[in-house]
């Protein structure tokens, strides 16, 4: 069993989350826009576009301290599990859930790991594109995880969250953030319709997330 899923929210994690949220506000003035859903302590999967390591910090900065303590970002084990330092940052400080994209052993099955976190009553932040989007496309195709989780735990709300500007604040390969204003738009919950198949649902969730972009790129 994943050691993180058993861990309580420690003092270190509280300090880190308060510190990072304050920093996120100082740098980006981040503000949540509730456009279809409202802050709630209900169990949720927040799914968002992914362009930067700062994404989940920004998203969790929009949640209340109590919700933040119950919400874990899902991160790639291939990257964050690479060294002891990275694992310490990801698991012990940020209380993320590490999953492996190329898993072999049954206990590494990402869906099982995420379900075990949900079964403790916690919420997840998920980036269904599976990787940081470095293309000119606004949003890549979704992987299946979102569908599988929703089928397995239909009571968990799926909230689309559009993260604005973060790719400009902290582009891939950069370490220092440029201060730019960011917003996170939280949309109406999406659910798998009865009998809906995988691809159809994923396309619908994809469209729901894309529709939240408050400032679509101008083609000039």
């Amino acid at each position, binding site marked *: 069993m994943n050691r993180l899923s058993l861990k309580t929210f420690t003092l270190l994690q509280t300090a880190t989350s308060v510190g990072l949220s304050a920093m996120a506000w100082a740098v980006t*003035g981040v*503000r949540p826009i509730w456009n279809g859903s409202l802050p709630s302590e209900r169990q949720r999967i927040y799914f968002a576009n992914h362009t930067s390591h700062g994404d989940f910090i920004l998203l969790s900065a929009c949640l209340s301290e109590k919700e933040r303590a119950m919400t874990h970002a899902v991160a790639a084990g291939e990257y964050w599990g690479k060294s002891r330092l990275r694992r310490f940052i990801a698991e012990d400080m940020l209380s993320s859930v590490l999953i492996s994209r190329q898993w072999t052993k049954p206990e590494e099955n990402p869906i099982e790991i995420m379900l075990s976190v949900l079964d403790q009553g916690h919420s997840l932040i998920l980036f269904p594109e599976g990787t940081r989007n470095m293309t000119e496309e606004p949003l890549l195709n979704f992987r299946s995880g979102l569908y599988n989780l929703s089928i397995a735990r239909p009571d968990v709300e799926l909230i689309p969250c559009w993260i604005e*500007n973060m790719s*400009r604040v902290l*582009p891939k390969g*950069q370490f*220092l953030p*440029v*201060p*730019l*204003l960011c*917003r996170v738009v939280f949309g109406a919950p999406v659910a798998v319709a009865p009998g809906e198949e995988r691809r159809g649902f994923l396309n619908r969730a994809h469209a729901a997330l894309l529709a939240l972009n408050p*400032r679509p790129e*101008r083609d000039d």
Partner: protein
Amino acid sequence: MRHEISILIIGLLVVLTTASIVAAILSARAPKPLSSTLVNLTQRINAWWVMVALMTVAFFFGRYGMTILFALISFAALREFVTLTHTRRSDHWVLLGMFGIIIPFQYWLVWTAWYGLFVIFIPVYCFLLMPAITALHGDTERFLERIAAQQWAVMISVYCVSHVPALLTLEVPGFEGRNLLLIAFLIIVVQGSDVLQYIFGKLFGKHRFSPTVSPSKTWEGLIGGLVSASLLGALLSFVTPFSPLQAAGVAFIACLMGFLGGLVASAIKRDQGVKDWGHLIEGHGGMMDRTDSLVFAAPIFFHIVRYFWTV
């Protein structure tokens, strides 16, 4: 100076209290739910309380308070400006330099009163070096647009804004140690003119000044605001080195520049397809929405005082 400051603070408190009472009476009488104009009016007045409180605190810390406050205002304004412009990944280091080097250095020049470098650091050195760095990165996509926007961003949000605390470095004979009052005069007159233009526009506004740029600006608002703000300037001449007539003239020029600043800011927002610069101040929008007039007025006011009143 303490005497003058007390009068200014009491005056501001009286104006704000009256505004709050009027807004409360209007809200109590108006049909529910309240119109968006009334809600916005109350938000604006509440934000003014916070802004006046912040300015007063900064005032009491004197040179330290003013320099730090306006450096932070530059930071917030530059952040809003750059957010609206087109940036690319290759601009990262230039953008970092704008926040991490240009702002601190420009305000250090204000602090040390190094006038010679203060006036040319951004328009000469940054103007030439920023595009050079961008060119060295080799990314020519929309090059001119990017470097022009970056240059304008630092000119407006850093260079112009830094002229407000720079007023403290001017040596006006017979006015030694009282320069903080020059800042108070400029801010009260220019921001007062904004409020007065808003009030005259709402009460009597009929003829739009420039419908393509800003539908809310009217000739009636402009003339009423400028005349009354000039009178306010004359009334405040006791805190300045100016005679009442001079104070009215200086106030008129500063407020006219302030009006033009608001017009330019509206044109930029229109071009970028947004209503407000940001969301920092409830009811007002962003920092640039509140300071656009001060941005245009400050350098001109600074140079008028420097040319005519210093030796």
